[in-house]
């Protein structure tokens, strides 16, 4: 257990260091989502209602997340994967990738939200609830897509396969998240959002537990 956590720590630091060196992946994702946000801004110049605002926000985040997370296994060469294989516990690999992608996507989601809120002036009833939904939704998105990216990296390394396999899996998560954040925008009481909060948390736990259990089978080849 101690060995696992130290491996996870080292792998996360390693990922962050690689990212910091090039900064290419992160900036490209930021530019990608800013461009999509600006396109929606140009399309909806005359004003936008909260339901459309919310739906568009999550769709933009979904596509940005697919692009951001899809690379997590695909960018690694065969040789590096074999090197990891001899050294590491597979659970450390999936946990570190998931945690790193969750961090990445939460940051991305916050930046997206800030830009989106500046361009479209939508009064958000309960900002804290919305942010809770944002964090939980991004967590689920990145955890699911990380495992899918692991599956695809073993299949044929085709990035479009991540979207094909991932989107149907994300239906329940996105539906709950969109409902949750819609209630937050309307400023409804916490008691109405509580069941959605419980389902979102349970989904996150389920997704992470399943990746933790299934990834070792993916690893063993």
């Amino acid at each position, binding site marked *: 257990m101690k060995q696992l956590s130290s491996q996870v720590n080292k792998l996360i630091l390693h990922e962050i260091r690689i990212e910091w060196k090039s900064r290419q992946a992160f900036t490209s994702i930021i530019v990608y989502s800013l461009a999509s946000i600006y396109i929606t801004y140009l399309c909806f110049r005359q004003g936008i209602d909260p339901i459309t605002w919310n739906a568009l926000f999550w769709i933009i985040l979904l596509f940005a997340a697919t692009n951001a997370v899809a690379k997590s296994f695909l960018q690694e060469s065969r040789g590096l994967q074999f090197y990891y294989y001899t050294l590491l516990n597979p659970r450390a690999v999936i946990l570190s990738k998931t945690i790193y992608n969750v961090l990445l996507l939460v940051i991305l989601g916050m930046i997206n939200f800030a830009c989106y809120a500046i361009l479209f002036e939508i009064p958000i009833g309960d900002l804290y609830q919305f942010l809770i939904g944002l964090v939980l939704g991004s967590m689920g998105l990145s955890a699911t897509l990380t495992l899918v990216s692991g*599956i695809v990296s073993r299949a044929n390394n085709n990035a479009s*396969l991540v979207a094909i*396999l991932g989107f*149907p899996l994300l*239906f*329940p998560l996105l539906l709950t998240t969109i409902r949750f954040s819609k209630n937050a925008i309307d400023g409804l009481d916490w008691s109405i959002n509580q069941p959605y909060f419980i389902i979102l948390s349970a989904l996150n736990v*389920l997704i992470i537990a*399943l990746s933790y259990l299934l990834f070792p089978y*993916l690893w063993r080849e």
Partner: protein
Amino acid sequence: MKKTRPISHSWWWKVIALVCLLYTYIAGFLGTVPAMPILNETIRNLFFHVCMWMSMFVLMTVNVVYGIRYLSTNNSYDDLVAEEAARASMVFGIAGLVTGMVWANFTWGAPWVNDPQLNGTAATMLLYAAYFILRNAVNDEAKKSKLAAIYSIFAFAMMMVFIMVLPKLTDSLHPGKGGNPGFNKYDLDSNMRMVFYPAVIGWTLIGVWIMSLRIRFRLVEQSYLEKL
């Protein structure tokens, strides 16, 4: 010593399936049904549409159970069963969708409405389509089976959340839910039960029959290819 035949080769359960279905068709179309507002005679769709989902659900459970078995045994037969179960469940899913859409056109006035159960169905169909796309994307047999098993376990868990948990939070347009008249435990009268339960058994057995035929076909095909 007489060689024991697997249960999929024996005939008695196929006879049960056929008798049940024959009974469903005759009693389902001719028997008495309670007169309900809006539903009227379309309530008979219960014997067909709902049974499609039950059968699909049983086959999907077979798919995930054999997926788990494959991961622990690495026996290619388990993967064959899982794949054919998914294929048969897809057939029943499409049949359920079509019967549901025809029915909805008469009762709701549109073949497709925004209803949690319909969304769940759409997601399920897409998941299984993605499952087959994943299978076709990999060339190596052992790797293909493993990836498909992992994906189907993950997909089954997500689908259970979608079909079992989420509809509880919102009202559905389906009969018996959200205050709609329908066949919940007070409305479903004993006449309909007498047809409904055999219908479920019959359709489920037909699904298993289709699956077992496909499996036998694939096994014959494999042994033929090995001889070449």
